């Protein structure tokens, strides 16, 4: 007995550790879960913790005690064994042989499990009785409450309790015996099958078992407390009864179970069972009797307690320790029991063994129990003796061990044989398990409630119920192993079930849907395609942020990717040659076409200029050549001709023997006032029929007097031309007034190709039609009678030009011309025309200007009309007598175009002004007052003295007038011997010389400086009648080319050059003379 005790003492720490570990787990798991709903449970857990702490202290105390014992030397014989045990449970096991140990453990485990099953069965039956968990739970809770109350309340009752415990232990012993018996059978049966199970599971179960044992103990205590308080509380009674009933029931169940199990295995066992059953009845009876006895003894116990209180207490405490230790090592003890049993050591030293023997024989169980009962006091006494010394020490710890009162209940257990303890352990285990299971169930219920479906709760509870019943044998281990996490499995199972339903539903749905839907792989969507940055950009990125600065220049912004960014170099081939050969000094083999065209156009332009230059130059050259020739000829002629004119220094004859000029009388000669070498001759229509159709036409020939061989231009007009004049300035236009009352003009610049050409003999002649004619166009504003005179209204410009006009005036200079033309007809209507040059001619003819020749560029615009006849008629007294007045001549004052002078048939010169100005003398008349009906045949202003003019009259009288005076400065009446004056002109080179041609072909040359009464020279040209004459010569130059052009009746034109005497003058003298004459006259 002591040995056992010592053995148990040795390894105190290890189970404690385990238990601590387990408790922690429990607290972490079950307790925590319980805590949610049940505060009491939590407190219970706390108490358990305290208990655990106390146990450690106990173990310390135990060691002390042990030391004490060693000193007393009472248990020397066991020391060796104890020492051996000290080495540790593992070592000890090793000593005994691992194999055997394992099997034993397994056996033990089986026992435990079986017990658990039994318990569960109990639970079941209890449930059957109570039918509801809740009530049980309440009861348990209540029990806990009680427990606490008891704990807090009286420690004194513990002694009573310990006494009662003896009884209980006895009962337990009996139970244990039964169980052992059963276990043996079962063990035998299961040994082979369970050999292979893992040690770990066993360990685990061992732990569980420990836990259970502890709890069981507590519960037992509770029940005992309840028993004690039966008198006070009816509930306690009930509980106790309940408990008793439970135990009985359990026992019965166990029997039944055992029977059932072992029936097939051993007949012997069956026999035993039957015996056992018989015995059982006794036992129960006995058990009850015991209890009653205990209750009856209670007062006595109390008394006892009071008497031996300190000692009792001490003992109690000590026993408590021992019980604890023992509890911890129950398994070991049990094992030892098994050992003993196996060995069948018949030493019989201890009661234990005896009991075992009895157990085997079974019939002896009651006896053994009795023995145990009787033995108890002895043991107790022994212990008391041993531990008396330590009373005081442990008193200090009383408070600490308050809660360990429960464990003190087991004091008696130690004194008893170990069998009852083992039984107690098992009961503890069962209680513990029940508690745990209950906790689990509660947790599950909570879980289920949370899930909310009654069905599932039913299923889980059912499962829980069913499992112990039907799968006891096969699933025992598994259910044990997963007991703590079982509810999770249920929930998971439920979830699985639910999810399975859902899955099936979804599967059905998906199968139905998949028939309707086509699933396919989409295209591969490119979510992002970010190309790697090229080196340059990377460089820029890195260096752009660095401390460097980049600058770049880009010529062509749109050509950033080009390597070469400069402009393309243009290349071309050129060559030069010096000295130049053939085509030139330089060249370009591959000129671009454009450039060539450009060059060509430039060349064209140049060629035009060249052509014009050449034209002009050739004219000059021709003129020079002809002059040269004519001079030689004239010299020859002069030298050869004996009958040269007295005034003449020589003569030149224009070649007028042209087929179209044949037999035409020249009616008029006229020199241009600007281009003194240009002369026109008007050839009257011939009366003789000829082959040419030009007979009825008047032909005007434009001559250059230096080029006498042929006329420059030939102008043609259908009717008779009365008068002619040149345009001012350069000779580009020729105006003519016709007998039919029209004014025509020719533009000499027109291309000859535009006009009718006629080939006569070897030469081709171009006959120019008038560019513009007022013939039918301006009927209303035109002249109704024949035009007697056309004059260009002089302008200031014209006067200036006269002084210095270049030979080759540019066309531009003359092109922009704009001047007025005046025409006078016989009836005295004076018309003013504006000569307009169009910028561009229209080859198709102008639709509006019907008088304009197609391609013509110059036209006349009628500007105003003055009826000069009225002013003439309004003239003094004698107008009426003299009949119709005819205006015969028109002249403008060269210095002032507003003053015009009209020669009439009354011998008067009418002075008119164009803008209504009043000029003092209205008429210039003869010196004689009376008006004579004589025509004014010629009026000519002096080129040197513009205010002086000569008037020649039909009666042969010549008057020299000053503009300012009505009376003539001088008048010569009979210088022509009564012959009418045909023409009269001042000399261009000398201011005092003028020529007069009379109708008798006498040419009178006057030189007023020499003689102011009669002509200096009078020449009679009887051989060929002179029809007209015109003086020519450069007024500004004192050259020899001043002379007179004589138009003969035969159509010849003869140029007579004046002698030096007539051309070279002393200007001062002449001026003086003229001055004197004018002053003398007035």
């Amino acid at each position, binding site marked *: 007995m002591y040995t056992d005790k010592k053995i148990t003492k040795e390894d105190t720490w290890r189970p404690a550790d385990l238990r601590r570990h387990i408790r922690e787990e429990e607290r972490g798991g079950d307790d925590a879960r319980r805590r949610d709903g049940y505060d009491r449970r939590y407190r219970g857990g706390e108490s358990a913790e305290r208990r655990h702490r106390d146990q450690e202290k106990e173990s310390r105390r135990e060691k002390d005690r042990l030391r004490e014992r060693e000193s007393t030397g009472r248990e020397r014989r066991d020391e060796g064994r104890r020492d051996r045990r000290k080495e540790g449970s593992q070592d000890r096991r090793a000593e005994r042989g691992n194999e055997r140990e394992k099997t034993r453990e397994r056996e033990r485990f089986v026992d435990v499990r079986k017990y658990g099953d039994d318990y569960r069965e109990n639970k079941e039956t209890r449930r059957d009785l109570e039918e509801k968990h809740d009530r049980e739970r309440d009861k348990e809770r209540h029990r806990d409450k009680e427990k606490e109350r008891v704990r807090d309340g009286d420690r004194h009752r513990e002694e009573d309790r310990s006494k009662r415990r003896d009884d209980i232990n006895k009962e337990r012993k009996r139970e244990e015996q039964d169980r052992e018996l059963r276990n043996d059978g079962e063990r035998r049966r299961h040994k082979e099958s369970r050999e292979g199970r893992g040690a770990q599971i066993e360990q685990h179960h061992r732990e569980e078992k420990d836990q259970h044992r502890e709890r069981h103990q507590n519960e037992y205590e509770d029940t005992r407390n309840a028993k004690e308080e039966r008198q006070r509380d009816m509930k306690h009674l009930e509980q106790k009864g309940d408990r008793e009933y439970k135990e009985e029931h359990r026992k019965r169940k166990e029997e039944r179970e055992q029977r059932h199990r072992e029936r097939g295995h051993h007949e012997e066992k069956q026999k035993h069972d039957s015996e056992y059953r018989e015995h059982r009845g006794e036992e129960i009876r006995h058990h009850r009797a015991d209890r009653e006895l205990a209750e009856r003894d209670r007062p006595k116990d109390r008394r006892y307690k009071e008497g031996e209180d300190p000692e009792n207490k001490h003992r109690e405490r000590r026993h408590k320790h021992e019980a604890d230790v023992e509890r911890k090592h129950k398994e070991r003890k049990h094992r030892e029991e098994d050992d003993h049993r196996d060995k069948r050591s018949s030493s019989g030293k201890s009661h234990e063994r005896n009991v075992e023997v009895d157990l085997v024989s079974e019939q002896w169980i009651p006896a053994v129990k009795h023995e145990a009962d009787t033995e108890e006091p002895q043991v107790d006494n022994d212990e008391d003796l041993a531990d008396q010394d330590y009373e005081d020490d442990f008193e200090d710890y009383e408070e600490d061990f308050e809660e360990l009162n429960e464990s003190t209940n087991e004091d008696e257990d130690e004194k008893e044989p170990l069998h009852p303890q083992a039984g107690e352990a098992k009961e503890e285990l069962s209680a513990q398990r029940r508690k745990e299971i209950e906790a689990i169930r509660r947790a599950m219920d909570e879980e289920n409630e949370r899930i909310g479906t009654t069905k599932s709760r039913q299923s889980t509870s059912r499962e829980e119920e069913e499992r112990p019943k039907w799968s006891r044998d096969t699933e025992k281990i598994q259910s044990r192993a997963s007991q703590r996490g079982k509810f999770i499995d249920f929930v998971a199972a439920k979830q699985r079930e639910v999810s399975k*339903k859902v899955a099936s*539903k979804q599967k059905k749905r998906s199968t139905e*849907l998949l028939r309707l839907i086509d699933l396919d792989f*989409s295209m591969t*969507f490119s*979510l992002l*395609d*970010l190309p790697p940055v090229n080196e340059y*950009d990377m460089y820029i990125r890195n260096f752009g942020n660095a401390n460097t600065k980049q600058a770049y220049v880009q010529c062509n912004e749109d050509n950033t990717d080009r390597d070469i960014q400069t402009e393309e170099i243009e290349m071309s081939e050129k060559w030069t040659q010096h000295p130049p050969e053939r085509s030139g000094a330089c060249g370009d083999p591959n000129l671009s076409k454009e450039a060539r065209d450009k060059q060509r156009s430039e060349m064209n332009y140049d060629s035009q200029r060249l052509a014009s230059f050449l034209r002009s130059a050739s004219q000059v050259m021709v003129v020079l050549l002809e002059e040269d020739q004519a001079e030689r000829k004239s010299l020859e002629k002069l030298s050869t001709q004996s009958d040269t004119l007295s005034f003449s220094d020589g003569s030149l004859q224009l070649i007028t023997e042209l087929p179209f000029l044949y037999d035409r009388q020249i009616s008029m000669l006229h020199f241009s006032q600007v281009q003194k070498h240009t002369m026109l001759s008007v050839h009257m229509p011939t009366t003789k029929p000829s082959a040419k159709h030009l007979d009825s036409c008047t032909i005007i020939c434009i001559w250059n007097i230096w080029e006498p061989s042929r006329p420059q231009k030939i102008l043609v007009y259908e009717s008779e031309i009365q008068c002619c004049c040149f345009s001012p300035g350069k000779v580009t236009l020729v105006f003519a007034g016709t007998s039919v009352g029209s004014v025509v003009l020719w533009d000499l610049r027109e291309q000859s190709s535009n006009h009718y050409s006629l080939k006569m003999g070897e030469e081709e002649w171009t006959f120019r039609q008038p560019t513009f004619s007022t013939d039918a166009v301006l009927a209303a504003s035109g002249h109704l009678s024949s035009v007697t005179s056309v004059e260009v209204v002089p302008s200031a410009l014209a006067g200036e030009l006269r002084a210095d006009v270049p030979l080759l005036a540019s066309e531009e200079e003359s092109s922009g011309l704009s001047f007025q033309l005046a025409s006078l007809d016989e009836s005295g209507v004076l018309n003013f025309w504006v000569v307009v040059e169009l910028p561009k001619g229209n080859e198709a003819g102008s639709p509006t200007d019907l008088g304009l020749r197609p391609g013509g560029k110059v036209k006349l615009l009628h500007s105003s009309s003055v009826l000069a006849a009225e002013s003439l008629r309004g003239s003094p007294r004698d107008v009426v007598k003299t009949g119709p007045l005819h205006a015969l001549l028109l002249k403008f004052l060269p210095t002032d175009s507003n003053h015009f002078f009209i020669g009439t048939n009354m011998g008067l010169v009418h002075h008119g002004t164009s803008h209504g100005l009043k000029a003092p003398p209205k008429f210039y008349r003869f010196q004689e007052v009376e008006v004579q009906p004589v025509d004014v045949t010629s009026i000519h202003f002096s080129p040197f003295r513009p205010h002086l003019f000569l008037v020649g009259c039909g009666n042969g009288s010549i008057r020299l007038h000053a503009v300012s005076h009505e009376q003539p400065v001088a008048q010569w009446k009979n210088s022509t011997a009564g012959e009418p004056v045909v023409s009269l002109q001042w000399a261009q080179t000398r201011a005092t010389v003028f020529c007069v041609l009379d109708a008798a072909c006498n040419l009178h040359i006057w030189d007023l400086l020499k003689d102011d009464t009669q002509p200096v020279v009078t020449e009679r040209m009887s051989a060929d009648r002179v029809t007209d004459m015109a003086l020519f010569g450069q007024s500004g130059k004192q050259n020899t080319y001043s002379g007179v052009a004589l138009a003969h009746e035969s159509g010849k034109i003869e140029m007579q050059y004046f002698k030096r005497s007539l051309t070279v003058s002393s200007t001062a003298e002449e001026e003086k003379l003229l001055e004197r004459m004018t002053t003398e006259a007035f």
Partner: protein
Amino acid sequence: MEESDTYHIRPNHQQKFRPAVVKECIREIVRERLSGVQYNPEEVPELTRSLADSVKDKVKNSGFDKYKLVVQVVIGEQRGQGVKMSSRCFWDADTDSYAEDVFMNDSLFCVVAVFGSYYY
């Protein structure tokens, strides 16, 4: 569970996943959240998640009922590397679609793809 065999296997027009609308959602959020943001490896995971969440919320509110949405947000740093992202789906092309938008600044690029899968 017995149910009638009528399924809405096609969304009506208003509820159909319209990539243009979703793209606009994405664009709006991404522009708002990422403009001027520099890549920071510590912040980007959180940024990515929050972006995905906000895009998801916004698209959810756009009225695509019965659509399961998957929002994928990828933010990467721009270091001159090449990046290629593509996706492939096994789906019902009649109902399901996706929208994606790319945002880039000097420091980072962000690809947001929203896949809408019709929930029959």
